[in-house]
Protein backbone atom coordinates (compact mmCIF):
# COMPACT_ATOMS: atom_id res chain seq x y z
CA UNK A 1 0.00 0.00 0.00
CA UNK A 2 1.36 3.41 -0.95
CA UNK A 3 2.08 5.82 1.85
CA UNK A 4 1.47 9.54 1.91
CA UNK A 5 3.14 11.11 -1.10
CA UNK A 6 4.03 14.72 -1.60
CA UNK A 7 5.04 16.57 -4.73
CA UNK A 8 7.39 18.20 -5.44
CA UNK A 9 10.10 17.11 -3.04
CA UNK A 10 11.90 20.42 -3.52
CA UNK A 11 10.86 23.78 -4.90
CA UNK A 12 12.88 26.95 -5.31
CA UNK A 13 10.90 30.02 -6.31
CA UNK A 14 11.40 33.75 -6.31
CA UNK A 15 9.66 36.05 -3.91
CA UNK A 16 6.30 37.05 -5.33
CA UNK A 17 5.79 33.89 -7.35
CA UNK A 18 3.13 31.26 -6.76
CA UNK A 19 3.77 27.69 -5.71
CA UNK A 20 1.37 24.80 -5.33
CA UNK A 21 2.23 21.80 -3.18
CA UNK A 22 0.36 18.56 -3.55
CA UNK A 23 -0.36 15.77 -1.09
CA UNK A 24 -1.82 12.38 -1.83
CA UNK A 25 -2.96 10.74 1.41
CA UNK A 26 -3.24 7.04 2.04
CA UNK A 27 -6.29 5.76 0.22
CA UNK A 28 -9.36 5.79 2.43
CA UNK A 29 -7.97 8.20 5.00
CA UNK A 30 -10.56 10.86 5.77
CA UNK A 31 -8.22 13.02 7.85
CA UNK A 32 -5.57 15.06 6.07
CA UNK A 33 -3.23 17.50 7.77
CA UNK A 34 -0.73 20.08 6.63
CA UNK A 35 2.22 21.07 8.80
CA UNK A 36 5.20 23.35 8.28
CA UNK A 37 8.67 23.45 9.76
CA UNK A 38 10.58 26.66 9.40
CA UNK A 39 14.33 26.19 9.85
CA UNK A 40 15.32 25.92 13.48
CA UNK A 41 11.76 25.88 14.71
CA UNK A 42 9.24 23.22 15.63
CA UNK A 43 6.84 21.54 13.23
CA UNK A 44 3.66 23.60 13.30
CA UNK A 45 0.13 22.57 12.46
CA UNK A 46 -1.44 24.47 9.58
CA UNK A 47 -4.81 22.87 8.94
CA UNK A 48 -6.92 19.75 9.05
CA UNK A 49 -9.34 18.38 6.48
CA UNK A 50 -12.00 15.79 7.15
CA UNK A 51 -12.81 14.51 3.71
CA UNK A 52 -13.25 17.69 1.66
CA UNK A 53 -14.18 19.96 4.59
CA UNK A 54 -11.78 22.17 6.52
CA UNK A 55 -12.12 21.02 10.11
CA UNK A 56 -9.53 23.38 11.57
CA UNK A 57 -7.48 25.99 9.75
CA UNK A 58 -6.33 27.87 12.83
CA UNK A 59 -2.67 27.34 11.97
CA UNK A 60 -2.74 28.96 8.54
CA UNK A 61 -0.36 31.92 8.79
CA UNK A 62 -2.20 34.37 6.55
CA UNK A 63 -4.43 34.69 3.51
CA UNK A 64 -1.56 34.06 1.10
CA UNK A 65 -2.04 30.38 1.89
CA UNK A 66 -4.93 28.47 0.34
CA UNK A 67 -5.57 24.79 0.90
CA UNK A 68 -8.06 22.69 -0.99
CA UNK A 69 -9.15 19.09 -0.99
CA UNK A 70 -11.66 18.74 -3.77
CA UNK A 71 -13.44 15.40 -3.74
CA UNK A 72 -11.88 14.45 -0.45
CA UNK A 73 -8.86 12.77 -2.01
CA UNK A 74 -5.64 14.66 -2.69
CA UNK A 75 -4.98 18.11 -1.33
CA UNK A 76 -3.14 21.15 -2.59
CA UNK A 77 -1.57 23.99 -0.66
CA UNK A 78 -1.01 27.13 -2.68
CA UNK A 79 1.17 30.01 -1.57
CA UNK A 80 0.49 33.22 -3.48
CA UNK A 81 2.49 35.41 -3.50
CA UNK A 82 5.37 33.67 -1.77
CA UNK A 83 7.50 35.58 0.74
CA UNK A 84 10.96 34.79 2.08
CA UNK A 85 9.58 33.71 5.46
CA UNK A 86 7.50 31.00 3.76
CA UNK A 87 10.65 28.94 3.26
CA UNK A 88 10.63 25.66 5.12
CA UNK A 89 9.55 22.06 4.90
CA UNK A 90 5.85 21.42 4.40
CA UNK A 91 4.61 18.08 5.65
CA UNK A 92 1.36 16.37 4.88
CA UNK A 93 -0.11 13.61 7.03
CA UNK A 94 -3.21 11.47 6.91
CA UNK A 95 -5.11 9.22 9.26
CA UNK A 96 -8.15 7.01 9.15
CA UNK A 97 -11.34 8.06 10.88
CA UNK A 98 -11.06 7.35 14.60
CA UNK A 99 -7.37 6.46 14.37
CA UNK A 100 -4.82 8.32 16.48
CA UNK A 101 -1.86 7.46 14.27
CA UNK A 102 -1.07 9.92 11.53
CA UNK A 103 1.16 8.86 8.65
CA UNK A 104 3.49 11.50 7.27
CA UNK A 105 4.81 12.17 3.83
CA UNK A 106 8.44 12.98 3.14
CA UNK A 107 7.74 16.67 2.96
CA UNK A 108 8.26 19.39 0.37
CA UNK A 109 11.23 21.66 0.95
CA UNK A 110 10.24 25.13 -0.21
CA UNK A 111 12.90 27.78 -0.67
CA UNK A 112 11.85 31.32 -1.50
CA UNK A 113 14.69 33.50 -2.78
Amino acid at each position, binding site marked *: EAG*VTQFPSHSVIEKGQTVTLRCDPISGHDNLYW*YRRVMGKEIK*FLLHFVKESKQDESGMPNNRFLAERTGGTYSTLKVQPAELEDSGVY*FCASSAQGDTEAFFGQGTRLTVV
Partner: protein
Amino acid sequence: AQSVTQLDSQVPVFEEAPVELRCNYSSSVSVYLFWYVQYPNQGLQLLLKYLSGSTLVKGINGFEAEFNKSQTSFHLRKPSVHISDTAEYFCAGVLVRGGADGLTFGKGTHLIIQP
Protein backbone atom coordinates in the same frame (compact mmCIF):
# COMPACT_ATOMS: atom_id res chain seq x y z
CA ALA B 1 -1.34 19.37 24.07
CA GLN B 2 -1.04 23.06 24.67
CA SER B 3 2.74 22.87 24.49
CA VAL B 4 5.46 20.26 24.13
CA THR B 5 9.04 20.94 25.14
CA GLN B 6 12.18 19.13 24.10
CA LEU B 7 14.98 20.90 25.92
CA ASP B 8 17.85 19.10 24.21
CA SER B 9 18.43 20.15 20.61
CA GLN B 10 21.05 17.44 20.21
CA VAL B 11 22.22 14.47 22.23
CA PRO B 12 25.57 12.82 21.44
CA VAL B 13 26.02 9.29 22.70
CA PHE B 14 28.44 6.48 22.06
CA GLU B 15 27.32 3.41 20.18
CA GLU B 16 25.89 0.68 22.45
CA ALA B 17 25.37 3.17 25.28
CA PRO B 18 21.92 3.92 26.70
CA VAL B 19 20.10 7.10 25.78
CA GLU B 20 17.22 9.16 27.10
CA LEU B 21 15.57 11.93 25.10
CA ARG B 22 13.52 14.24 27.23
CA CYS B 23 10.04 15.51 26.55
CA ASN B 24 7.74 17.53 28.77
CA TYR B 25 4.23 18.62 27.99
CA SER B 26 1.89 21.25 29.31
CA SER B 27 -1.84 20.74 29.30
CA SER B 28 -4.75 21.29 31.64
CA VAL B 29 -6.60 18.30 30.20
CA SER B 30 -5.68 14.78 29.22
CA VAL B 31 -3.43 14.29 26.23
CA TYR B 32 -2.25 11.61 23.88
CA LEU B 33 1.52 11.62 23.42
CA PHE B 34 3.70 10.41 20.56
CA TRP B 35 7.32 10.07 19.55
CA TYR B 36 8.19 10.36 15.87
CA VAL B 37 11.56 9.79 14.21
CA GLN B 38 12.87 11.36 11.03
CA TYR B 39 15.80 9.62 9.38
CA PRO B 40 17.82 11.64 6.88
CA ASN B 41 15.88 12.41 3.71
CA GLN B 42 12.77 10.63 4.94
CA GLY B 43 9.40 11.55 6.39
CA LEU B 44 8.33 11.24 10.00
CA GLN B 45 7.73 7.73 11.26
CA LEU B 46 5.82 6.87 14.40
CA LEU B 47 8.01 5.25 17.06
CA LEU B 48 5.41 4.83 19.78
CA LYS B 49 2.36 6.40 21.36
CA TYR B 50 0.68 6.70 24.73
CA LEU B 51 -3.10 6.80 24.75
CA SER B 52 -4.08 5.30 28.08
CA GLY B 53 -3.41 2.32 30.31
CA SER B 54 0.12 1.19 31.10
CA THR B 55 2.44 4.15 31.46
CA LEU B 56 5.36 2.27 29.91
CA VAL B 57 4.95 1.95 26.18
CA LYS B 58 7.19 0.04 23.85
CA GLY B 59 7.79 1.03 20.28
CA ILE B 60 9.72 -0.01 17.23
CA ASN B 61 13.50 -0.42 17.04
CA GLY B 62 13.86 -1.14 20.75
CA PHE B 63 12.63 2.23 21.97
CA GLU B 64 10.32 2.74 24.92
CA ALA B 65 8.84 5.72 26.72
CA GLU B 66 7.25 6.29 30.08
CA PHE B 67 4.32 8.57 30.68
CA ASN B 68 4.65 10.39 33.99
CA LYS B 69 1.60 12.47 34.78
CA SER B 70 2.96 14.02 37.97
CA GLN B 71 6.07 15.24 36.17
CA THR B 72 4.22 15.90 32.90
CA SER B 73 6.94 14.01 31.05
CA PHE B 74 7.17 11.43 28.31
CA HIS B 75 10.86 10.64 28.00
CA LEU B 76 12.11 8.29 25.29
CA ARG B 77 14.71 5.65 26.13
CA LYS B 78 16.76 2.96 24.50
CA PRO B 79 19.13 0.71 26.47
CA SER B 80 21.71 0.37 23.68
CA VAL B 81 21.88 2.56 20.61
CA HIS B 82 23.22 1.77 17.16
CA ILE B 83 24.64 3.92 14.41
CA SER B 84 21.37 3.41 12.54
CA ASP B 85 19.52 5.30 15.28
CA THR B 86 21.10 8.54 14.11
CA ALA B 87 18.08 10.70 13.33
CA GLU B 88 15.96 13.54 14.61
CA TYR B 89 13.34 12.65 17.18
CA PHE B 90 10.13 14.57 17.77
CA CYS B 91 7.81 14.44 20.72
CA ALA B 92 4.22 15.43 19.98
CA GLY B 93 0.89 15.62 21.73
CA VAL B 94 -2.78 16.14 21.09
CA LEU B 95 -5.69 16.81 23.44
CA VAL B 96 -7.95 13.88 24.19
CA ARG B 97 -11.32 14.92 22.91
CA GLY B 98 -13.69 14.12 20.08
CA GLY B 99 -12.12 14.39 16.68
CA ALA B 100 -8.59 14.02 15.40
CA ASP B 101 -6.93 17.35 16.04
CA GLY B 102 -3.56 18.39 14.73
CA LEU B 103 -0.45 17.53 16.71
CA THR B 104 1.62 19.93 18.76
CA PHE B 105 5.31 19.17 18.30
CA GLY B 106 8.43 19.84 20.27
CA LYS B 107 11.42 21.36 18.50
CA GLY B 108 13.07 18.01 17.92
CA THR B 109 16.23 16.38 19.25
CA HIS B 110 19.09 15.26 17.03
CA LEU B 111 20.45 11.96 18.28
CA ILE B 112 24.10 11.71 17.26
CA ILE B 113 25.68 8.31 17.63
CA GLN B 114 29.44 8.29 18.01
CA PRO B 115 31.38 5.13 17.14
